[in-house]
């Protein structure tokens, strides 16, 4: 267990003013069996109205609207979390978990992923968790962390064909591999101890719970990760999603920081 102070800042700058801006933000970590959120402050600016909601995966959302012209939009979130309380999320039942067994447009395998999946062999009676660990290891050996070659629309199959990408790509390929073996697997977004951006990892259904595995780092998720949201793939977990009127180019700046709290 760790006590972590976290902050997340996202700023969008538009090169000309936009209006009619609708947004949905999923940036708020929640208390679960794995983590306890002790403090949380969120600020979204500018806005004409803000409202709060919970999506169908249980993720907390802030949604709202900014009608008037603006050339800047920002999200600030900070708080304190106690992490690594339990190894798995056990609040979902097996029938509901079943929905994560099926491929989505982002994870649907092609020949690259099918070949990689086939190259892994399991011991008889291996649990989903054990199978997922082997799949993760195989993925890690066949994929390199290289930023800038993929984007948010890149599918798992496209990324594996390139052989490189970022945490989103690792996670999509991992989900695809697990689902090929009928293992329900979720996409998770959160923050990782250190400085940088948000992070993504997989949660794998085994023995009555979702066990988080981080394929980018080829490790089990312990107490260095703060969970924000889960879904079928990246699209269910976008931290900021928006539409607006205007032909503006946008520049995005993100800064996340997670440090151990001073006791």
């Amino acid at each position, binding site marked *: 267990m760790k006590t972590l102070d976290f902050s997340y800042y996202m700023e969008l700058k538009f090169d000309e003013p936009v209006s009619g801006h*609708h947004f949905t933000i999923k940036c708020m970590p929640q208390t679960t069996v794995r983590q306890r959120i002790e403090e949380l402050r969120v600020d979204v600016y500018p806005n004409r109205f803000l409202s709060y909601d919970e999506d169908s995966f249980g993720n907390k*959302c802030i949604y709202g609207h900014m009608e008037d012209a603006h050339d800047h939009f920002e999200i600030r979130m900070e708080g304190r979390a106690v992490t690594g309380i339990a190894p798995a999320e056990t609040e979902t039942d097996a*029938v509901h978990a079943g*929905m994560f067994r099926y491929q989505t447009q982002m994870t649907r395998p092609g020949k690259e992923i099918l070949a990689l999946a086939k190259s892994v062999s399991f011991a008889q009676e291996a649990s989903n968790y054990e199978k997922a660990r082997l799949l993760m290891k195989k993925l890690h050996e066949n994929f390199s962390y290289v930023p800038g070659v993929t984007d948010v629309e890149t599918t798992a199959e496209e990324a594996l064909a390139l052989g490189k990408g970022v945490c989103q790509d690792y996670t999509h390929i991992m989900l695809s591999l697990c689902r090929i073996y009928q293992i329900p697997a979720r996409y998770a977004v959160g923050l990782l101890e250190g400085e940088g951006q948000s992070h993504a990892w997989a949660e794998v259904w085994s023995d009555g719970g979702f066990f988080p595995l981080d394929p980018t780092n080829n490790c089990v998720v312990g107490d260095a990760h703060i969970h924000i949201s889960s879904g079928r793939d990246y699209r269910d977990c976008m931290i900021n999603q928006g539409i607006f009127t205007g032909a503006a180019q946008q520049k995005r700046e993100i800064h996340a920081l997670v440090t151990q709290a001073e006791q």
Partner: protein
Amino acid sequence: MRDFDLYAHTEQVNELLARYGVKFGIYKNNEFREQLFPFDAIPRVIEKADFEYLERGLKQRVIALNLFIRDIYGEKKIVRDKVVPEEFIYASSGYLAQCEGVMPPRGVYTHIAGIDLVQAKDGGWYILEDNLRVPSGASYPVIARELCRRSSPKTFEDIGVEDNRNYAALLKWTMDYVNTGGHNVILTPGRYNAAYFEHSFLAEQTGAHLVSGRELTVEGDHLYFIDYSGRKERIGAVYRRISDEYLDPMNFNKESLIGIPHIYDIYRKGNVALLNAPGNGVADDKGIYYFVPKMIKYYLGEDAILNNAPTYLPFYKEDMDYVLEHFDRLVLKDVAEAGGYGVVFADKMTKREKEDFLVLLKNEPRRFIAQEVIDFRDIDIMEDGERVPRKADLRAFVLMGEEPVVWKSGLTRFSRNPDSFIVNSSQGGGFKDTWVLSR
């Protein structure tokens, strides 16, 4: 059947339909064309006792379908109890994960159900498919009846036909029942939609505003209509004639320009009713159709009053064996397709097509259902002054308020091609009025 004075007025009624703009739009070769929906004056007549039987069966079916959708997006008992296999839910294109845990106002999902039936030669009725998303077509028999009565009042003097011109009143009753406070609106994708005539007709008849997405806006936790003068009115029920994926770009298809951002968020909070409920596609998929009699048994403890056409699910090995053995006499349907597309009759396939299809079937057994071909009872139509028999089906409409009500009429569609079993208006068929006898 006797000849009515009305038949002499067929042409006059069709002219009036054209003058009133009763049209059906279709896309062909990427071009939008409005076609008249040809009307045949010989009605389908349903005896009082026969209709009472249909009524009992349709109510039972729609009650079970509504319970099924509520269960699927809630507890999922029917999956837990292994009556319906998980993949027929989660891998279905009609299943929307966004609907998990969302209870619509008053628990109604299937506000307007269009149930397609056929009558076999022996007089028995079979369900062909359930349409629980945006079933269209009720306005056609309403306006046809009105014009028939005007052209030939004599015909209706003494035959005792149930008046079907109460459809709009039923629809309004359905909207009012789930309205969360405010006006009713009918949301149309616009005039280039196949059923635009119907949208405007129903709006006029129910007193609802006919609106496009850009006239509606979410502010705070409520939905508003903004009129041309900028005045805002709260909206409590949206009879939307656009499909789920275009409803809300923030929750469904992000590219949708005809939807309303955040409408789904406030729906989730119970602050507006959407008719029909998003996510209903999970219950009217051709794969799920197979399970409807089992649903009726499971939720209501009753046997289904109305039968499905005998259906096989190649997903189950014994059904696959049956399908392979009796392939040539079956009709195969792709579960993901609608509107008469993706339907093939095995006896009409060439040897090559058959071989290709069998490979596809073995690779993707969940994608298809197979059915016995039902020998429909033909209905006469008038062609060049002569009565000729044609295949026809019946779309019955069941509207759900506090309880389901079966509208005492329906849309009878016929195939103009004597060799075709496919009657969908998107495939160029015509329509008839449906008379339910009151005595």
